[in-house]
C-alpha cells in the first residue's frame, strides 16, 4: 500500500466504520418493519437519532460512580473500533500477525464488559438486574463462541492468524457448518438481539443495562451497538466464509456474504420470542456445547484422516 493510500486508510477507517454501522442499523430497523408489514424509518434515521442524543442533556444519577459511568461507553466503543481497524487492515492490506484471532476474541468481550461496568455503576435497581443478566449471558455464550473458533483453527490445520484463516471457508464441511451455526447464535447474543435481548428487556426492565444513560453517553452506546453490527458479521465472514476480496468479484461476493450474515441475524431477531436467562444458559451450555463437542471430534478425525468435508 502506497503512502497516500495508507494515510487515507487511517483517516477514513473510524468514521467509515461508524457510518457503515449506522446504515446497518437502519437496515435492521427497515427489514424488521418490512417483516411486520410496516414502512419503517427513512435511511438517515439512525444519524438523526445520534445527532439528537448528542444535543440532549446528560443526566447522571446522584449515587452513581461517575468516573466509571462516563468512561464505560468510551471503553466499549474504543474496543470495537480497535477490532474494526484490525479486521479492515487484514482485509485491505493483508497485515496480520500470529495469534490475532485471540486478540480479536478478547476485544469482542470488551463492549459487553464495559456495559456491565457502566450499568453497575449507575446505581439503578433495574440496571442491576440487567447487569446480572448480561453477566450470566456472557458466561453462557463466551465458551461456545471460543469452542466454535477452535473448530475453525483445527480445520485450518492449527492456523492462529486471521489472514490465513480467511483464505479458507470452513463452512463447507460438517464440523465447520455446525460451528458456524453456534457462532451465529453467539453473535446474536453479543448484539443483544431478540431471543437473547435478556439484559436489555424493554418490556420488563425498561431497557435494563442502558436505563440510566442519557444524552451523549447514550449516543456513544448507540454508536457502539451500530459498530458491532459491522464488526461481528464481518468477523464471522472472515472466520467461516472465506473473507473479503479487495477488488472485482471477490469484493462483491464478500459484500454479499456480509449482507447474508446481517439478514440472517435480522430474521432470527424477528421470528423468535425472548428467552429467559436460565433457558439461554441451558441452550448455550447444553445444546451448543454438545454440538461443538461433536464438531470438534469430527474436525479432529477429519484432520487426522485427511477427510476435508468432515
Amino acid at each position, binding site marked *: 500500500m502506497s503512502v497516500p493510500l495508507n494515510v487515507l486508510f487511517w483517516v477514513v477507517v473510524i468514521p467509515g466504520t461508524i457510518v457503515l454501522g449506522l446504515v446497518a442499523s437502519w437496515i435492521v430497523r427497515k427489514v424488521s418493519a418490512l417483516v411486520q408489514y*410496516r414502512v419503517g*424509518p*427513512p435511511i*438517515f434515521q439512525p444519524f438523526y437519532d445520534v445527532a439528537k442524543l448528542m444535543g440532549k*442533556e446528560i443526566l447522571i444519577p446522584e449515587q452513581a460512580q461517575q468516573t466509571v459511568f462516563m468512561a464505560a461507553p468510551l471503553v466499549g466503543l474504543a474496543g470495537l473500533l480497535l477490532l474494526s481497524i484490525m479486521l479492515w487492515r487484514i482485509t485491505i492490506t493483508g497485515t496480520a500477525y500470529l495469534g490475532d484471532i485471540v486478540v480479536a476474541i478478547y476485544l469482542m468481550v470488551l463492549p459487553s464488559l464495559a456495559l456491565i461496568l457502566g450499568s453497575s455503576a449507575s446505581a439503578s435497581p433495574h440496571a442491576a438486574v440487567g447487569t446480572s443478566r448480561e453477566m450470566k449471558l456472557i458466561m453462557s455464550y463466551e465458551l461456545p463462541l471460543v469452542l466454535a473458533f477452535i473448530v475453525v483453527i483445527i480445520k485450518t490445520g492449527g492456523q492462529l492468524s486471521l489472514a490465513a484463516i480467511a483464505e479458507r471457508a470452513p463452512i463447507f464441511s460438517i464440523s465447520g457448518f455446525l460451528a458456524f451455526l453456534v457462532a451465529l447464535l453467539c453473535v446474536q447474543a453479543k448484539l443483544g438481539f431478540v431471543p437473547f435481548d435478556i439484559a436489555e428487556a424493554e418490556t420488563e426492565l425498561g*431497557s435494563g443495562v442502558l*436505563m440510566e*444513560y442519557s444524552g451523549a453517553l*447514550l449516543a456513544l452506546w448507540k454508536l457502539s451497538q451500530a459498530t458491532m453490527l459491522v464488526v461481528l458479521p464481518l468477523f464471522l465472514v472472515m472466520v467461516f466464509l472465506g473473507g473479503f476480496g479487495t477488488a472485482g468479484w471477490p469484493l462483491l461476493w464478500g459484500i454479499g456474504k456480509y449482507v447474508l450474515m446481517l439478514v440472517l441475524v435480522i430474521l432470527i431477531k424477528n421470528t423468535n420470542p425472548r428467552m429467559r436467562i436460565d433457558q439461554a444458559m441451558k441452550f448455550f451450555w447444553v445444546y451448543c456445547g454438545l454440538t461443538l463437542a461433536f464438531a470438534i471430534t469430527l474436525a479432529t478425525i477429519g484432520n487426522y484422516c485427511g477427510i476435508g468435508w468432515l
Partner: protein
Amino acid sequence: MSWKIWALKKSPWVFHVNAGACNNCDIEIVDLLTPKFDVERFGIKLVGSPRHADALLVTGVGTKQAAIRLREVYRQTAKPCVVFCIGACACGTGIFEGAYHVAGPVDKIIKEEDPNAIIAYVPGCPPKPEAMISGVVKALSVL
C-alpha cells in the same frame, strides 16, 4: 433553528406515563406503532426509560398518588422535552373534575415542577391515533 431542535424534530422518542388512566388512551397510543399508522416512519419510537425520552405521553387524570411520580419522571427526563397530555382526563380532568383523589390536570402538576415546560394537549376520550399524530406534528412545528 438550532441543530439540536432540528434533530429533535427528526427523532422524537416518547415515554408513556400512565397517571391514573382507564387504559383506553393507552391502547390508542400503542395503536400508533401498529402497521396501520406506523409512526416509526417519522422516527417516533417508544422507549422504556424516561432518560432516553424526548416527549412524555401522559394519560390519565393525575391522581394524588400519581402526581408525585409524574413530577419525578419529569425531573428524570433529559431536557429539552415536550409533555403531551393525551385524552380528556389529562387535558382537564374530564368527568373526574373536583373528585377527592384528583391532584389536578396534568399541566398543573408539571408546571409546579417546571413553569416553563412545553405542554401540548390532545383532547378526546380517547383521542384518535390520527389526532395524536396531528398533535405531535403541531407541537413539534412550534418548537
